[in-house]
């Protein structure tokens, strides 16, 4: 919370990313009758049985948990589409397929709460896992190409992927930048947190066990 003193932690936690993803809209088919909801996040409803409507995911999950609706998985989560995406990812060595920005979080939420609403859920799940793996592998090989000439990087990845590699990418680019700009080193030394420098006490002796 207020003490994220570990510099290796990424700016956003996974839970916060999920929170952001929960605002994406999803189609549900309610089985209850409810009047319009005028929430701070927007107006939703009215809800009538068997009539599909769009709501944010957090609302869909809440209704689903109480058995008040079924969730219609988004079009990109079908076995056919995902198989195409997976093949395209495998074929191209460096470019990434266009996937929804929050595909990791959305698929996770749906697997956790709406498993019975997804046709061929095991197939879909394994396809998404494979896509994630292929993409991460590509990210890894792409990162090896970071060099001192890089001052900006273009990455068209999903939210979760960006967040996971954020500390590495920003740290790496920063180090390259500092090493490549000698006149900047003096400036940035003042800006960084001063780590206490241990005095050089001469050659180290083996400590007696």
């Amino acid at each position, binding site marked *: *919370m*207020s003490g*994220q003193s570990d510099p290796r932690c990424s*700016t*956003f936690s996974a839970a916060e990313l999920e*929170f*952001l993803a*929960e*605002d*994406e*809209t*999803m*189609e549900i088919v309610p089985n*209850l009758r*409810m*009047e319009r*909801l005028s*929430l*701070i*996040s*927007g*107006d*939703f409803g009215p809800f009538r049985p068997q009539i599909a409507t*769009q709501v*944010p995911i*957090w*609302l869909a999950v*809440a209704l689903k948990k109480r058995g*008040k609706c079924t969730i*219609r998985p*988004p*079009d*990109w989560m079908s076995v056919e589409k995902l198989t195409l995406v997976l093949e395209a990812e495998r074929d191209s060595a460096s470019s990434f397929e*266009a*996937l*929804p*920005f929050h595909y990791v979080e*959305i698929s996770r939420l749906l697997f956790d709460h709406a498993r019975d609403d997804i046709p061929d859920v095991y197939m879909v799940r394994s396809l998404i896992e494979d896509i994630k793996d292929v993409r991460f592998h590509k990210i890894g090989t792409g990162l090896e190409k970071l060099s001192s000439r890089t*001052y*900006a*990087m*273009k*990455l*068209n*990845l999903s*939210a979760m992927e*960006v967040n996971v590699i954020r500390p590495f*990418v*920003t740290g790496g*680019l*920063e180090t390259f*930048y500092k090493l490549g*700009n000698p006149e*900047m080193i003096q*400036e*940035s030394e*003042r*800006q*960084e*947190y001063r780590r206490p420098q241990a005095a050089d006490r001469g050659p180290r002796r083996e400590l007696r066990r």
Partner: protein
Amino acid sequence: MESGSGEGTGGFSAMDDYETLISTTDADLLKRSWRNEKAAPEILQFESSLVQRSREQIQLMEETVEEFMKNGEDPLTVSLYQMDIDRTLFLLRSYLRTRLQKIEKFMFHIQKTADLWARLSREEQKFAKRSIEDMKQHLEQSVSNKLPDRYKSHLKQSVISEEDDMVMEPKLDAFVICRTRKFLGSLPVDDSGEENPLDMYAGDIYALRYKSIKPLIETGQLDLV
């Protein structure tokens, strides 16, 4: 919430995701401010009118929920309204907490820099003043007063330092990851003499130095991710 071009239509280009963010409801604005504040290395301008409006909306909602509960309204509806309130409250609180964290970290620097001081709200300024007093006193009592005379200042390492080198400053050169909202054309991104402008299309994600894109974030053309 304008949900027309959401996930349901099946298009998964980055543009679709982005259309939903272009709507400027207060909830969306709060979310954006929260994200930018979390990812930026320095403290940003306090969104006082947005915070005020959000507070009022939350209060209104809380009163509505209380009325519902008194009238015996369907508990499902009540719990959904409550969830929405909780989500908005979380955003608001986290936004304020992140700012306080940054103030705590850079308090001396913020006090010195008029531009940064002006970015704080009045309550934050009070908080900053008190923290500075406390910190200064603490440092003096526990350390500085016991050091030789030339080294007593909490701002300078020693009397001969030219600048306040004990003061921690935010790293404006830090790299941040950002996303474009619309086509921005080519921008000269590196100011060290290499003129390699980047063509930035809508929905692209970049890792860049914070300093180069600072003005764009303020005008809302880039979002920190």
